[in-house]
């Protein structure tokens, strides 16, 4: 019952500080919006490609062969499943200016179609096996966008050449998409991580709320009352849990509004969210233990935030630093951070359409780790801030 009183009191106080709560709630949906912009406003990245088409069409009998133009058209027609273009093709005349654009990263790749392109293809078709046209690719090899654009363009030209020359091939390539991933846009693949990010960002609230009670001294008053630390921390956690859920819901709604489609069922996702927030509350309590004031808590909270955001794969996919293998599961450094498992679980649910039985391992790891983090946070807070203490803060 006292736990409930603390919860109600927290709601009352925060209601009068609405803009602070509002700002922290707006943070994660803002991230969703930024990621949406980053993926081209369509949820998919369009790669900018420059083409210098020097090809001179040739006429064979009544037929006009325009291989260069055909390739440009095919590049322009390359689409994601949702219909938005994969490549933005810009026709260039001058190689020097085009390379300038590559250097400034205004485009990812430059393709130069030679003047004898159509002619050589026709010659090959007429049986001249040695005919060879040189298609040139120019790009900054350190630019990851170049690699992607390069592969796309090469595939398109290769397919085209195969089509017009009808040359037989010993190998054909087959692509099998995992789960619903074929129909997913790049933006959609970021969303599960961003939902976890929404919870991670609550580390500020989780650190500043208890720190406020330390700074203002009210904890000293509370310690004299029969309020137990269980009731006090439970009341605060209830409030923080509520805010976390609201943050995730807002983030989810923002993602849906920008074109996100969920593949799986919602209930496991909600449960994952709630458990994850427990670990973040634990970390917040730890931060509060080392802070004398709200502003200090804010500064210190940035450190766990950085780790949680970038190591867990919430902000974007990270390489895993492999540690050891148990029961066929590879363990990495980031596996010690509860949100890592939440990101994987939500990815399975939302992108691959997984249900409970597919996320047993992640859920178990998440529960264990979250309870551990929460337990450590609560214990340290009790020891340093509650009961009879060695130093009055």
């Amino acid at each position, binding site marked *: 019952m*006292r736990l409930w*009183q603390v919860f109600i*009191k927290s709601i*009352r106080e925060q209601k*009068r500080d609405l803009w602070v709560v509002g700002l922290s709630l707006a943070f994660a949906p803002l991230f969703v919006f930024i990621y949406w912009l980053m993926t081209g406003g369509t949820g998919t990245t369009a790669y900018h490609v420059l083409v210098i088409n020097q090809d001179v069409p040739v006429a064979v009998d009544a037929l006009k062969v325009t291989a260069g133009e055909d390739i440009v058209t095919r590049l322009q027609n390359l689409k994601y499943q949702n219909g938005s273009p994969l490549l933005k093709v810009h026709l260039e005349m001058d190689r020097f200016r085009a390379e300038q654009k590559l250097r400034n990263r205004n485009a990812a790749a430059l393709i130069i179609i030679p003047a004898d392109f159509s002619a050589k293809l026709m010659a090959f078709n007429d049986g001249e096996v040695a005919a060879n046209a040189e298609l040139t690719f120019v790009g900054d090899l350190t630019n990851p966008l170049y690699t992607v654009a390069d592969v796309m363009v090469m595939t398109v030209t290769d397919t085209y050449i195969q089509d017009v020359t009808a040359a037989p091939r010993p190998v054909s390539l087959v692509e099998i998409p995992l789960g619903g991933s074929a129909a997913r846009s790049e933006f959609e693949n970021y969303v599960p991580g961003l939902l976890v990010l929404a919870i991670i960002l609550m580390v500020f609230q989780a650190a500043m709320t208890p720190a406020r009670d330390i700074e*203002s001294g*009210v904890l000293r*008053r509370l310690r*004299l009352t029969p309020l137990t630390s269980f009731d006090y921390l439970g009341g605060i956690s209830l409030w923080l849990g509520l805010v976390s859920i609201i943050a995730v819901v807002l983030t989810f709604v923002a993602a849906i509004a920008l074109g996100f489609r969920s593949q799986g069922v919602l209930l496991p996702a909600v449960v994952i969210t709630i458990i994850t927030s427990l670990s973040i509350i634990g970390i917040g309590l730890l931060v509060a233990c080392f802070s004398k004031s709200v502003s200090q808590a804010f500064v210190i909270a940035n450190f766990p935030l950085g780790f949680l955001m970038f190591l867990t794969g919430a902000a974007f996919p990270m390489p895993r630093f492999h540690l050891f293998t148990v029961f066929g599961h590879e363990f990495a450094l980031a596996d010690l951070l509860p949100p890592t498992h939440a990101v994987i679980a939500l990815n399975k649910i939302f992108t691959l359409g997984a249900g409970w039985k597919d996320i047993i391992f992640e859920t178990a790891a998440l529960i264990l780790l979250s309870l551990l983090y929460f337990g450590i946070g609560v214990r340290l807070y009790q020891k340093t801030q509650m009961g009879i203490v060695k130093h*009055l803060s």
Partner: protein
Amino acid sequence: MPPTVLHTERLSKSFGDIKAVDALSLQVHEGEILGFLGPNGAGKTTAISMMCGLLKPDAGQVFIHGKPVIGMRTLVGVCPQENILWEKLTALEQLEFIGSLYGMRPKTARRRDAVLLEELGLSNKADQLAGKLFGGMKRRLNLALALVHDPEILFLDEPESGLDPQSRVLVREYIRSLSKRKTIILSLTGRRLRE
């Protein structure tokens, strides 16, 4: 002689090199007022914090009705030296909150809070956020919060500091009236000895 309410045995506390309280032994009887007088930094706040069971002494013990203070803390009320208030709660809301933590029924608490606010001249500020109150009013609310659960022993750490002359008279009269029903331990800075 009335029974002993509180006694301490050689209470000591140091902060680094500073010996804030050194082997303090005392007895307070029911209905007594005990005053700690001393200049700034003499250790008054430290002594009070140990006696009410907030601060752990380096050595020595505190007893209330012969039992260690830690289990008897509901019998004490503390009015701290600095105002400790919930800035974002109204005067009435924080009195009610504290009351609920002591397990008071809402009805009893409401009656009690109304009386406290009346006695301390805060009736018309009941619905004002504590953060918006003027200094003297905050001071009086700070005192009211110590009294919600009608404690038997009252610790007042410099209750008159930060009060305008008018409020000071009100508070002093109020403490005097309380002393008929309660055991009071208060601290005052040295320069007020004359008063």
